[in-house]
């Protein structure tokens, strides 16, 4: 294996000066492996990934997935997530939605789990919708370097945290598989589990469709090569 080639020196006039991007140089960078190609190329010949120019057209996919994620988030909250039966229905059977489940956990004094479920199923998804919508709105608009760093940090947080919302679906699956004690108690999943899983998946796709390179450039994008 030969040594790895990589640079930590940017093509900048000075350390704080303007940084030359691939796009400005009339080139196109591969987001998969970092290779740089002439602008006309469509596929990276090293890693096979499609070469996409960093322009606002890619935001259409972000909005589409985000909308799909939001649409599925509605039934995820309206329908029951869990259906619980105790003592063959004599001890009562209940259906709980995401929010109802949190209230129920609080009621039993289970603050920790209630907090985790509330964060993972309500705060994080709603925060993600707002964050992605905001990033997509301001993407490509002029920003200071400081703004850009903040936006990138927000993007990284959204990208990292997205998968973790799936935790509630796993909890429902485990509870439903485990708590099958016949007469004593049984738990079944509700339709909200599917809606929630889809909502999380679509939001993940939305975040993945967002091109963080857009954070770093002002409009207009396609024609400016100054």
């Amino acid at each position: 294996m030969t040594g790895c080639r990589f640079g930590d020196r940017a093509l900048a006039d000075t350390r704080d000066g303007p940084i030359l991007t691939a796009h400005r140089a009339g080139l196109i960078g591969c987001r998969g492996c970092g290779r740089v190609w002439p602008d006309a190329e469509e596929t990276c010949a090293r890693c096979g990934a499609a070469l996409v120019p960093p322009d606002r057209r890619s935001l259409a996919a972000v909005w589409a997935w985000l909308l799909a994620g939001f649409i599925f988030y509605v039934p995820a909250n309206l329908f029951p997530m869990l259906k619980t039966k105790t003592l063959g229905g004599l001890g009562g059977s209940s259906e709980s939605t995401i929010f109802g489940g949190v209230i129920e956990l609080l009621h039993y004094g289970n603050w920790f789990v209630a907090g985790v479920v509330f964060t993972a199923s309500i705060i994080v998804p709603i925060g993600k919708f707002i964050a992605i919508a905001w990033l997509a709105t301001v993407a490509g608009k002029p920003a200071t370097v400081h703004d850009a760093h903040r936006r990138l940090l927000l993007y990284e947080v959204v990208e990292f945290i997205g998968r973790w919302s799936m935790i509630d679906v796993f909890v429902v699956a485990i509870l439903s598989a485990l708590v099958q004690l016949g007469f004593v108690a049984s738990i079944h999943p509700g339709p909200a589990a599917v809606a929630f899983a889809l909502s999380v998946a679509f939001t993940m796709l939305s975040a993945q469709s967002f091109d963080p390179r857009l954070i770093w450039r002002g409009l207009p994008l396609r024609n400016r090569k100054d």
Partner: protein
Amino acid sequence: MQSEGTYDLTTGAGLVACPRCDALHVEHDLEPGETARCVRCNVVLARPRAGAFTRIIALSVASLVLLIGAMFFPFLEISRMGFGNQTSLFGVAMAFSEGPLMPLTVALMVTILGLPMLRSVLLVYTLLPLSRNRPPLAHAVWAFRLSETLRPWSMAEIFVIGTALALVKVAGLAAISLGPAFWAFCALILVNAASNVFTSATTIWDAIEDGGMRTDDRMPLRGQGLG
């Protein structure tokens, strides 16, 4: 190949673009242990580690063994008032197997078991020849790209945390015992974390390229067609 530190602004040879912010960098060789970061957004561009490929292979095989073990051993067991229930990972996935929730069963099996296993196999396929200084196998580019694409969808570690939460939830309701599959999944988190430390995608792409794979026409080719 271009000589060290030279670049061509018309073809992009010898340059690297940051995947996060598009800033151009000049390629140069890194020693194992060094880290190259983007000067603008500070994202890690490459982080070669000595013996990384061999370690990733070892960790991938370990992860495969753990996953296969986790499939067959009991996962969790609960009992209450003489009623008991034991579940395996299949049981967990099958929780959604009634009627309209069926697709979720498939999705669970895929994200918990399928994708982690597939990624392990793909990584071994990509890296085994490279770790022995042989040219990569025919579909190495495709295999590694697929593995990277699937990375966020492989959710074994999220599943373990979900299990822990579920256990806290039912702790008051019934007695629970943890099966070997549960511990296998806990070990899997550590194995995955270690594997991530050693994985530097750009380093692997460089190795695939240097190993004689099809590349752009600026590079010398080893009996392969042009891209």
